[in-house]
């Protein structure tokens, strides 16, 4: 829309000054966003002497991966000095099934709620949607009790269950909003052609769904991987996901404070979601702004 810049009559000295100001603004805020990452990265490569003698922005003398190795396999989290490794795998084991199951259920539910509307379907959707808005504090207590009752307390399957349940409102919302924009005639035509509920889903809707599948998977992946509240509330010791372990690692106060290890641990924890964002973030923003946020 800023085609105006290229229209005639805009080439005054004011315009050049404006452009300069514009880039100044963009770049200084770029620095606000990017510098913390650079600081964390460079700190993780320094040794403790360098940290004490240098400043935040001074660059490490060499790329020293010692603190990364230490954070990964030796750092103490509470009393056990295993590094982040086992917790990282906890998170992987928790995130993958939770993302997949909540996405599949969300897709099927969103499909049934839009393309095979039964009486009360809108009401059902509204009730599911409500789940997007609750502060999770209102379910922490009963959930802790229920997990204990089910024998899932402090286990990865327990967290998987929690993340599926509280991710569902979002996945249903995403798929429902995507599927309402797909013409009903397509489903009518397929019904007349003799395809049933699942055949229509599998053969016609699913091949049209990659954009929203990408959005949902990225959303769920970052939400679940980054979760701290549920992990901190329902797990202790070896059952913790990596975010909780990271927090414990940073707050474990035995011996010297090793900032470089903290930073390496933070980066290890952030790596999967950052990787997903860098690889597929474009599709995420596009899909999110096109579909779900507009409503």
């Amino acid at each position, binding site marked *: *829309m800023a085609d105006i810049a290229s229209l005639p009559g805009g080439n005054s000295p004011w315009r050049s000054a404006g452009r300069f100001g514009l880039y100044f603004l*963009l770049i200084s805020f770029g620095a606000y966003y990017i510098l913390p990452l650079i600081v964390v990265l460079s700190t993780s490569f320094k040794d403790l002497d360098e940290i004490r003698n240098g400043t935040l922005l001074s660059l490490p003398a060499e790329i020293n991966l010692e603190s990364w190795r230490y954070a990964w396999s030796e750092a103490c989290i509470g009393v056990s000095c295993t590094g982040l490794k086992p917790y990282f795998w906890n998170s992987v084991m928790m995130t993958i099934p939770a993302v997949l199951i909540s996405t599949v259920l969300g897709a099927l*539910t969103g499909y049934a709620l839009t393309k095979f509307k039964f009486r009360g379907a809108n009401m059902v959707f509204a009730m599911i949607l409500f789940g997007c*808005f609750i502060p999770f504090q209102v379910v922490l207590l*009963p959930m802790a009790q229920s997990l204990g009752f089910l024998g899932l307390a402090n286990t990865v399957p327990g967290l998987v269950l929690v993340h599926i349940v509280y991710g569902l409102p979002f996945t249903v919302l995403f798929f429902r909003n995507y599927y309402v924009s797909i013409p009903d005639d397509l489903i009518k035509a397929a019904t007349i052609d003799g395809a049933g509920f699942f055949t229509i889903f599998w053969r016609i809707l699913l091949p049209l769904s990659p954009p929203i599948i990408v959005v949902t998977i990225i959303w769920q992946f970052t939400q679940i991987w980054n979760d701290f509240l549920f992990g*901190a509330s329902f797990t202790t010791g070896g059952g913790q996901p990596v975010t909780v372990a990271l927090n414990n690692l940073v707050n474990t106060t035995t011996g010297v404070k090793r900032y470089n290890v903290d930073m390496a641990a933070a980066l290890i924890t952030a790596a999967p979601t950052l990787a997903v964002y860098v690889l597929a973030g474009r599709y995420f*923003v596009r899909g999110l702004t096109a579909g779900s*946020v507009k409503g």
Partner: protein
Amino acid sequence: MTNSMTEKSLPAKRPLADWLRWNVAKLVVAPTFALIIFFVYGFIAWTGYVSFTKSKMLPTYSFDGIYQYVRLWKMSTWHVAMENLLVFGGLFILIAIVLGCLLAVALDQRVRAEGLLRTVYLYPMAISFIITGTAWKWILNPGLGLEKMFHSWGWESFSFDWLINSDMAIYTLVIAAVWQSSGFVMALFLAALRGVDSEIIKAAYLDGASLSRIYLVIILPTLRPVFLSSFFILAHMAVKSFDLVVALTGGGPGNSSIMPANFMYEMTFRRNQIGLGAASAMMMLATVMAIVIPYLYSELRERKHG
């Protein structure tokens, strides 16, 4: 499709197969719906009930009226938490929206390297609040962080101790939360700006309006829905914020930067005050609903009109 193939029961040729065919949609929705009913509505009801009991370490089920709520509102920590929420929420929402909007307008001026800048503004969104807190804790660390950097650049009198200053700790949360979320707001605004009808702008340009006037008077008013969405999304995040506090300030110094979510966690899981924790959780739910219900109402109404 509209109301189709579900309402009428069928002749008794192959009853089961036919019944399945007409009800499959309901069957597919059922598991999700059941999970939500139980884990959302059932659990809220449970928490609500417990908030009216004197449960301590274990839940008890004898009804005791609003005892816990009275107790909650008499606690100075809870008042601090609610005040913090107000200060943090207000600043966080305001700054994130202004910044997000500003950056979106700036990015919309056909700048070079737009894709790169967008990525830079947006990546914090992918990161956990725990990581954000850890990183900013290190950067704002009074001994080794920003302060030291400015000292080494020759600005000896520079001091930045917000993290350990009980009056200022809450603002460090704002800095970190804005860092993490404003890029997302920017993305929302940018998408909306790209959707503004370019003919309106050309018409205004022909009428002789300057660029800044075009933005202020014509374009931004059309983005009202985005302002609203951003406001509600950010408000919702503010009420829920828990991890950032844990990682950045730990609620301290003292309880000076505690938030309702941390209060609830502390009471429930550390101090064995389940009833009180439940009451604070219900207060949080009420706060969120006070924000969300008007939002949903306005959304639905607009869609009906649209």
